[in-house]
Structure formats: structure tokens, C-alpha cells
């Protein structure tokens, strides 16, 4: 239990509904014509849990998250959100059901201000007779406060997002999803392009989000990043779930081996003198 307790949230601090299943998929299948991208994936994400999705290229990670976030419609299988079966027809439907996805490159528009990015698509308006205007003062205030909560002091929320670092941008995107009431957060490779300090900033924020009682699906190539924040690990291979493990079941090395498809990596590791 020692490893797990590093990241665990004390019982008394847990918000209501902790541990309740938010997303359940059973035997999810997705075909693209003759190509079978998902051949039966099962996954349960609970409130207050960081569920890491691991797998090599072509394992079906992207297809799975695009299905969960409403971009693709599944060919078969059950998809249950908050106890109710769902069939999303657009990303908007998924957002409305509380599933927010943060894509690695497409999270933010660099030329636009932090405020405009933060409220993009959900602008606060104030009415003036028949006209409605964007409530910039309110938007700036919220953007600035939410940034300070993460520990980014933006002096001017109207400065362009381009002036933020990559890690800060990911954090803004996550903060935005949380602010707008996401119940499940899907993070697509949030750390893959980041340096060490930036990665730790993002991972720390993921932990904060979990403590708030959200479910997080964290997609990554990097087993170390996954192990640092994850509670559960699902390994995908060739469109199937190889298995789901809790942190107490599996060690970092075992996870690494599982992810690479067991045998080949071991061989390669020997070839390279154990450095992989």
C-alpha cells in the first residue's frame, strides 16, 4: 500500500460520490470498413480515479478516446455514462454529458488571449436590451483567478496564450474543462512534448483535479508519467484490452513490459544491454 498512499486522498477529504463509476464501456467495437480498430475494449472509470490508458502505436488508444469523446460512433458494444447508456453524435454531446477531452496540439489558439481561449465556445454574455455582449470583465476575472489557482500568475489575462509555456497551456486547457463542469477528463498525451519541470507541473495538476472527484483518463506512451499519477492502468494492444491493473498489483517494470507486448521488448532490452 505504500506506493498507492503517496497519491491517495484521505477518506475525510473525499468529495461526495467518490468511487462512483462515471464511464463504463463493455466490449466496445469500432470498424473502419474492413479495418478493425477496436476489437472489444472494456473499461470503467470511477470518480476520483486517474485511469491511465497505455499502449503502443496502433493499439487503438486514439480510436478509443475519439469514440468516448463523441468524434466516432462505436460499431458495437455498450457505452454507459453515469449509469445511462449513451450514443453521442458529436463532441458537443459528449461535452454536455460531462466528458471533456484535451487534445495535445489542439487545446489552445496561440494568437488569442488567455481569456478568449478559456471561454471559447462558452462565452459569458450580458444583455443590453435586445443586444448581447461578451462579459469581458467577468471573463478576465475568472480566467485570472483560475490561473492563480493552478499557480500560474498571469498579470494580464488578455495576453496571448502563445506567451505561455507548453505545460502552462495544457494546464489552462484542463482548468477550462474543470471550470465548465467536466465529470470525466480525457487527456491525450498531455506530457509528450514537455520538459521535466513542465511535466511535473501538469502531473501535479492532474492530481489536484482527481482530488476534486473527477475521473481522469490519461493517455500516454510514458509509463513513468502514468505511474506517477495513475490509480489504474489499462493496457491496450491491437484493439483489445490486455488487462486493467491497480497500482498495488503491478510494478513499473511489469507495466513497461506489458505495454510493449511482453516478449519483444525483453529481447530488445537484452540486445541493447538493458537500457530500454
Amino acid at each position, binding site marked *: 500500500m505504500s506506493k498507492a498512499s503517496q497519491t491517495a486522498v484521505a477518506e475525510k477529504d473525499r468529495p461526495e460520490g467518490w468511487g462512483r463509476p462515471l464511464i463504463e464501456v463493455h466490449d466496445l467495437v469500432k470498424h473502419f470498413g474492413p479495418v478493425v480498430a477496436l476489437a472489444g475494449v472494456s473499461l470503467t472509470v470511477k470518480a476520483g480515479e486517474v485511469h491511465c490508458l497505455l499502449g503502443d502505436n496502433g493499439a487503438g488508444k486514439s480510436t478509443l478516446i475519439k469514440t468516448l469523446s463523441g468524434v466516432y460512433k462505436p460499431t458495437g458494444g455498450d457505452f454507459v455514462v453515469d449509469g445511462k447508456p449513451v450514443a453521442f453524435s458529436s463532441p458537443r454531446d459528449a461535452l454536455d454529458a460531462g466528458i471533456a477531452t484535451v487534445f495535445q496540439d489542439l487545446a489552445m489558439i496561440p*494568437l488569442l488571449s488567455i481569456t478568449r481561449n478559456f471561454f*471559447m*465556445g462558452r462565452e459569458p454574455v450580458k444583455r443590453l436590451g435586445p443586444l448581447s455582449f461578451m462579459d469581458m470583465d467577468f471573463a478576465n476575472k475568472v480566467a485570472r483567478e483560475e490561473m492563480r489557482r493552478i499557480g500560474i*500568475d498571469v498579470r494580464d489575462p488578455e495576453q*496571448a496564450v502563445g506567451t505561455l509555456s507548453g505545460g502552462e497551456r495544457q494546464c489552462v486547457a484542463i482548468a477550462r474543462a474543470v471550470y465548465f463542469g467536466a465529470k470525466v477528463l480525457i487527456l491525450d498525451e498531455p506530457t509528450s512534448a514537455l520538459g521535466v519541470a513542465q511535466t511535473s507541473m501538469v502531473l501535479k495538476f492532474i492530481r489536484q483535479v482527481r*482530488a476534486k472527484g473527477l475521473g481522469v483518463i490519461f493517455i500516454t506512451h510514458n509509463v513513468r508519467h502514468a505511474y506517477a499519477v495513475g490509480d489504474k492502468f489499462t493496457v491496450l494492444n491491437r484493439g483489445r484490452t490486455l488487462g486493467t491493473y491497480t497500482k498495488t498489483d503491478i510494478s513499473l517494470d511489469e507495466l513497461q513490459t506489458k505495454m510493449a507486448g511482453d516478449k519483444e521488448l525483453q529481447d530488445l532490452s537484452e540486445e541493447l544491454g538493458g537500457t530500454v
Partner: protein
Amino acid sequence: MVEQSNSGRMETPIVDVIDERLSRQSRLRRMLSRPDLGAFAGAVLVFVFFAFAAGDTGMFAADGVMNWLTVTAQLMIIGTGAALLMIGGEFDLSVGSMIGFAGMVIAIPTIYFHVPVGVSVILAFVMAMAIGALNGYIIVRTRLPSFIVTLASLYMLRGLTIALSIVFTNRTIVSGLKQYSDNSFVAALFSAKLFPGFFRWLAENGIINKLPNGAPAVSGLPMLLVWAVVIAVIGHVVLTKTRVGNWIFASGGDANAARNVGVPVSAIKISLFMVTAFCATVFAACQVFEFGSAASDRGLLKEFEAIIAAVIGGCLLTGGYGSVVGACLGALIFGVVQMGILFTGAPSDWFQVFLGAMLLIAVLFNSSIRRRVTGER
């Protein structure tokens, strides 16, 4: 970054983390990243230059001012549309042809088929905006560059305007609109001169000069100017103060990112093409009712002038950045220089040299601003 020890609950107390590597961003620096800064500086420079070069030529007397204000106002109308569209990430090269087309749609039915002039004007707006919507729809659906699609409409519309005016009237210049439009409200809406009494009073008191026959040199405030200011103000307010404005920025900045958060990118782009068509039609209507005639070559090269005004005004060619105020200042620079060169007596060919140079400088300046804004090196 300073470590925050109490990870855990989300409602962590707000602690300001001061990064010693960042100096506080000054007000000045923020001003320097405004898109319209360059155009503002340019406008000041141009005024100073002509105050010296043409100060004694009547360029800044009432009729001289009206001279360059007319050019400015015309360009403000289509420049506002071009700037909004460019910020939304697209171009419209069919603006010039649209001006010729809309003018003919107003003139031919009125003169040859005795359609009430108001109906012709409405018909022109409807047809132009439908073509604009079609441009936008093709671009949104096929994801082809708007440059190519609207280049095609530039030629098709111009050809259609000439061909149809020959079919219906056997000529390419249709005149004689005045007798149908005199005393009509619609004609006044586009070509009236407001407050003639006030301008007479100004002339009688020697504030503005008189013509030899005693009439004031400027007979009133032309509706063209009113349209220009109204369109620019609405454009500016929509862009900077409304939710739709945020969607325009987002659509041009990164259409995919915008779609992912639920911005109706396609609807925004199609609407913006309709806006440029609307602006072109207003331009055409003002011109047609002013001259009482329509010509199928009206508006030639205006699409480029509109784009130049927008670019001088700080709009990025790649979209997502720019301002309507900038485009209006770009139009002002354009008008002052074009007319100013005439006032100084220099050959007007120099205007084109100046315009090209101005455009190049503006683009260089914009890309440096872009780097400052996004922090790229």
C-alpha cells in the same frame, strides 16, 4: 516555479507564484502588441507628411477633405468586411466583381423593366449575399483555399455582369437611373447629403469655402460616410465585444481547436462571406445612386484595395488576428495618400509605388508583432 506543498483538495488557497525570470508586462508593451498600432503610426506619418507637402494646396480645406474622405469611406466599407473575413481565416477576391454585379442588379431591372428601385436594391442585396454564401459554402465543404474559390468567382461574376448587361441592354454602361430614383427614399438612403443647412451656414460664416456661385464647397455630409462609419462601428463592436467576435477569432486562429470546443466554425465562415458581399453591395449602391448609372467594370481591383487596407491595418494573412479599427486606418492612409499625391501635383503613378511599399512594410511589421504576441522567436 515554487512548490505548493498542499496538493490535495482543488480549492487550494490562491498563492501568487512569482517567476523571477518574467519582468512585469508594462502597459507600453501591451500597447505595442495591438494589431492596429502600425496603421495608427502610419496614419500619423502620412498626415504629417502631407501637411508639409500639400498644406497650402487646399487638401485640408473642406472640399479637399471631402475628396480624400470619400475614397477613405468607400474603402472603409469593403475593408471592414475584408478584415473580418481575414480574421476569420479566409479571403474574398470576388469583392470587386461583386460591386459591378450588384450595381447592375440595381440599375437594369429599374431602368429596363421598371421594377421599383427599392425592390431592385433588395434584389441586389439578396443575390449578392446568396453568392457570398455559396462561396463560403463551397470553401467550408471542400476545404479548398478561399483564394482559389473566390478567384473563380471573381472571373465568373465579372464575366456574368458584362454578358448579362449586354443580353438585357446591349451595352456595358447603363445610365439614366436618376429619373427613376429621384425623390425615392432608397436613393436618399445611399446618396443623400445630410445637414445641407448646416453646411450653408458654415459657408456663410466663412468656416468652409464657397464655390464661385455662392454655394458651399461641400453641400452636406454624404450618406457614404455615414454607411462607412456605421459599418465600421458595428464591425468593431461585434468583433471585440460579442461572442460572435470571439468565434471569428477562434475560427481564423485554429478552426479545428475551435470546432472541438463547440464553435460553429462553418456557420461563422459562411456568414462572413455574406458580410463581405453585403459590404460590396452597399459600396455599389452608394456609387450607383451617386452617379445615376451602373457600369460593368465598376469595382475593378477593389478586392485588392480592401485586402491592402486590412493588411496595413494589422490583419494577419493567416487569420486569427487583426482589428477593424486597423482596417479603417488602412483605408484612411490609402485615401489620404491617393488624393494627397494629386494635390501635391506629383504624377499619380507614384501612388502605386507608395502603395506597394506600404504593403510590404506593413506585412513585415505584422509578422514581427505576431512574433511578439505569440512569443515565438
